């Protein structure tokens, strides 16, 4: 992005001075960066500082160096929560993105009746707060008075209980998929819109059918958007908090305090007052997230070349 203006100016044969390398840009970027420093950089620094200490019952706060980090790495509750979101990630994200991809291709094909209606309707769940989405699905999941119970009663079925320990992760996956499938569809759809139409024409003239065009023209054109959507989904999965924390209010036994890493960090600090250890858990999770997002980005972009 930075280079666009540069090459443009060069193409016009202007001297580099017309780029106006001066401090004036800071007048525009400065306000954002000031608040950014306060809201992002300061807490990150403070978080790292916190993670190096431990509050003891006797003797107050003591510097413990890397002890908290060693403790996280050996903490079975942390690894249990990590394993859970990893399973979630591996199952839910591909399902959601595949669905979003199919939708984007279908809507972009121009072959649907009521294309505009589809586009906006599928996106609407994104406007629904996670709280409301989880409450709605929570009510619908109910086997006694909920929709699942209604269906069982009306049709004499015995559908499995979505709010049972075996199925709770899948039930959360369904809520998250419902919330974000339209959002991801829109990212992919927007990327399809900027594909140069002459590519389709060239492919058609070469005798490519629609499926071939999808496979050879559209999917490659979507790679950048797919990588972005995947990275956002990975970050989202590792940060899973809202849906399980609200389902926990329905039945405290269903969702443990260490159901996800975030829920664990939250419980540690706001129920357990273990701020130092909680900060450490959050940092470890943040580092893992960044590494995985970075690897995905590298792999995704390398294939593009």
């Amino acid at each position: 992005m930075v280079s666009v203006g540069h090459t443009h100016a060069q193409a016009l044969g202007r001297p580099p001075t017309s780029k106006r390398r001066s401090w004036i840009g800071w007048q525009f970027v400065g306000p954002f960066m000031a608040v950014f420093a306060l809201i992002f950089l300061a807490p990150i620094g403070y978080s790292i500082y916190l993670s190096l200490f431990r509050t003891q019952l006797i003797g107050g706060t003591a510097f413990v160096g890397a002890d908290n980090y060693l403790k996280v790495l050996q903490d079975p509750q942390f690894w249990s929560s990590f394993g859970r979101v990893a399973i979630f990630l591996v199952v839910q994200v591909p399902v959601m993105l595949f669905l979003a991809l199919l939708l984007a291709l279908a809507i972009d094909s121009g072959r649907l009746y009521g294309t505009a209606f589809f586009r906006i309707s599928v996106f609407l769940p994104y406007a629904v707060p996670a709280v409301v989405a989880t409450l709605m699905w929570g009510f619908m999941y109910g086997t006694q008075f909920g929709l699942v119970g209604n269906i069982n009663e009306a049709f004499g079925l015995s559908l499995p209980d979505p709010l049972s320990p075996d199925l709770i992760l899948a039930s959360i996956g369904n809520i998250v998929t419902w919330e974000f499938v339209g959002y991801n569809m829109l990212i992919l759809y927007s990327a399809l819109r900027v594909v140069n139409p002459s590519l389709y024409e060239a492919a058609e003239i070469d005798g490519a059918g629609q499926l071939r065009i999808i496979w050879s023209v559209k999917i490659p054109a979507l790679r950048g958007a797919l990588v972005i959507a995947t990275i956002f989904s990975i970050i989202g999965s590792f940060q899973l908090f809202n849906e399980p924390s609200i389902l926990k209010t329905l039945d405290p036994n269903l969702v443990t305090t260490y159901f996800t890493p975030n829920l664990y960090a939250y419980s540690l600090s706001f129920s357990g007052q273990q701020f130092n250890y909680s900060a450490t858990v959050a940092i470890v999770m943040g580092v893992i997230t960044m590494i995985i997002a970075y690897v995905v980005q590298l792999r995704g972009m390398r294939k593009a070349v």
Partner: protein
Amino acid sequence: MATTTHIADRTPGPKRAPASSHGPLVIRRRRSARGRRSATLTVLTGLVLVYTLLPLVWLAINATKTQEGLLDSFGLWFADDFALFDNIGATFAYNDGIFARWLLNTLLYVIAGAGGATMLATLGGYGLAKFDFPGKKAVFAVVIGAVAVPGTALAVPTFLMFSNLGLTDTPWAVIIPTLVSPFGLYLMWTFATDAVPREILEAARVDGAGEFRTFFGISLPLLAPGIVTVLLFNVVGTWNNYFLPLIMLKDPDWYPLTIGLKAWNQQAATTGGEAVFNLVITGSLLTIVPLIAAFLLLQRYWQSGLAAGSVKE
């Protein structure tokens, strides 16, 4: 801004191709190839539509039921009595009208937080797109890196910082962290790169206009679709925010709608608490209606803004 017209154009036919660049024969060919609508594809896609709309239909139907009706009747059909307006009245009346207070709080957080975030992102994105300045690469690296930092990794230290500053349990604790939107900055940056031609800026400078005059007079109108897009996404993020107010606020008087609804729902699970499921459901409906209306009303603008800011190879 060719993409803008493509999105807005709903008519079938050669959506993407500017007519001037192709012979009439090509256009006719493309219209016949792309205009052939498929009932099968519509039905298959319709299955996903049912999935996405079903919970919203469920919510709308069940907001018309009384507490008893909720338990007695089939979830996807109406109960005998139609209690929507009673429920809305009860939602606003319950607990000395605290729901209205939550609604006003949410509006405050949205106007100050999302509005401020959009302003900062617009200025910053424009600055990154149109100026070269010392430290620009560092700004880029730091901000893009921060997008990957889990928001909740910052929650505990932010809470402790705000607690030391005496800001927790005040609106500032929700508004200030909302002001920064790295994604908004990124979107605005990619949008401004294309939407404001460098030649116009050069011309304004030659004419002696200051940078801020140029920004407000010339660039801002060109940035409008991008601003609407960023604003809408910030509004959604703030309206729907749950985690931040959850940790920052203890006093129900400062709750936004999301935390208030959760509190009402939780009430039923506590011993001696009154179950108000009909109010939770009606309150949920009232919470999502303004946002869905905003998306529907503004869809031309934000969809074109999103397309223009979308990822390009």
